[in-house]
């Protein structure tokens, strides 16, 4: 016999009172917010509350976006600049990944690394790394090299820390299992600790992707050269704020591309872990 327990729904009707704004679909919500922000922006500049030298009107910015976009598409000097910055970011990220990963394994896997290397890394990491820019320029000149060095320098530390933390992540039971199977240290590292640590390592890479952009642009601000950072500085010194705005927008596309490449790689290589749109772990 089946008995059905009826929880009285008469006077305690549980209704989800979701606000209207929470019920609109994502794309609409995003568009709505965009329109509101741009609307306020337009109002503020149109009414002359803020000087157009400080904040250009949306229309001006849009016009300049087209101009820069056109310049990029037709392969003019801005494309060269973007390419230079892209190379800087790419090399910086590659070097940071190589060095960061190696140091991370050294720190996470050896007692020497943990005891002797880590304290120095922490000490350097707490320094304001941008302050090293003049040194890199002095050592490597005004070419792309000094920018790559600064970008890599900033991006290395999160990868070291993430890799080391990842190597510690295997549980006691998993280590014991490998020991019981007679696994060598190398086997334990390659078949247990590294795969277990991959989600951590990718988190480090995402932080590094943000850092490498900051490093490359800072390098170009301070060291001149042919990159996008130099264009931005130039536009700013001419008080061409619409240009600064549009350059930053295009630059952010580069950052997004790098970030989502890392997210894509994480989905591909850490397939057993569920990853959401923004690359966060669900």
């Amino acid at each position, binding site marked *: 016999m089946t008995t059905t327990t009826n929880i009285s729904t008469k006077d305690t009707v549980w209704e989800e009172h979701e606000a209207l704004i929470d019920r609109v679909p994502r794309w609409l919500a995003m568009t709505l917010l965009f329109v509101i922000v741009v609307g306020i922006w337009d109002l503020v500049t149109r009414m002359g509350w803020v000087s157009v030298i400080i904040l250009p009107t949306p229309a001006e910015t849009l016009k300049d976006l087209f101009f820069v976009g056109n310049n990029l598409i037709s392969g003019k000097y801005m494309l060269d600049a973007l390419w230079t910055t892209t190379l800087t970011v790419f090399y910086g990220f590659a070097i940071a990944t190589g060095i960061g990963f190696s140091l991370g394994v050294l720190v996470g896997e050896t007692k020497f690394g943990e005891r002797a290397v880590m304290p120095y890394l922490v000490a350097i990491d707490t320094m304001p790394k941008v302050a090293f820019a003049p040194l890199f320029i002095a050592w490597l000149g005004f070419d792309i090299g000094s920018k790559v060095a600064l970008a890599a320098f900033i991006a290395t530390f999160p990868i070291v820390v993430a890799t080391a933390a990842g190597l510690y992540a295997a*549980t006691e*039971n*998993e280590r*014991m*299992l*490998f*020991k*019981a*199977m*007679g*696994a060598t240290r190398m*086997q334990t590292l390659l*078949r*247990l600790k590294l*795969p277990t640590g991959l989600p951590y390592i990718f988190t480090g890479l995402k932080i590094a992707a943000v850092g490498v952009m900051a490093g490359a642009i800072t390098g170009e601000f301070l060291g001149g050269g042919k990159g996008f950072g130099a264009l931005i500085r130039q536009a700013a010194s001419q008080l061409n704020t619409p240009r600064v705005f549009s350059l930053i927008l295009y630059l952010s596309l580069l950052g997004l591309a790098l970030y989502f490449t890392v997210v894509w790689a994480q989905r591909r290589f*850490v*397939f*057993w*872990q569920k990853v959401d749109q923004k690359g966060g772990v669900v």
Partner: protein
Amino acid sequence: MVEAQPQTDGQQIQQTPPVYEIERLSKTYARNNLVALTDVNLRIHQREFVSIIGSSGCGKSTLLKIMAGLLPPTTGSVMLEGRPVLGPRPDIGMMFQQATLLPWKTTIENIVLPIEIREGRSAAKAAYTRAKELLELVGLKDFANVYPGELSGGMAQRASICRMLVADPAMLLLDEPFSALDELTRDFMNMELQRICLERGATAFLVTHSLDEAVILSDRILVMKPRPGRIVEDVKIGLPRPRNLEMINTPEFGQIVAHIRGLLGQEAYQ
């Protein structure tokens, strides 16, 4: 007082040569100078199922790790099939409280992992047929190519039984293998374990917290007391095999449980 000392009818078992022989074993953890085990002597014979029960922290896992060659003893000797245990050995199969399946390997890849580690990838591939037989044995043959993330707790533990069995070990060491499962699944798994052990003629050593589990599965139960960890009694369980869950309600079963509970005393079950 319970007078019903369970009868000893494991006589024919006793005559076969021991698989495990542990003599005057003691273990002191150097780190905190903690005496985890003193003067442990035990023999396990072929096809025997022996359980060890005792309060938390009395040294059961320590004993099991020493038997598995994962931890060196301070004094004493551990012999498995006539050879001293000096490190992890392929003729020992282990199972832990957690299934510990690697999430980036499919069920079948997880099962052949011990072979992959010891003999390489091609040997592991060659063991697939065997792994499939084992999966069939535990009723998981449809899940060979599934990742562990899609297995339930009980299914994962069944897969880890297969992993333990794949290298055909002479000895099974089980550290609370089913204690993380719910009671119904646990009963079921215990019956599975008994069936597998009988079918394969396996020798097993089980660490458990559950009296019922120990009595239903074992030929002998070693009762351990803490501080320092030592074996205080060796209780023979004469219940006929194969055992089934209905036996839990029989008076014999109740007497054995009561007897061991008395031995363990108040401290273990407050």
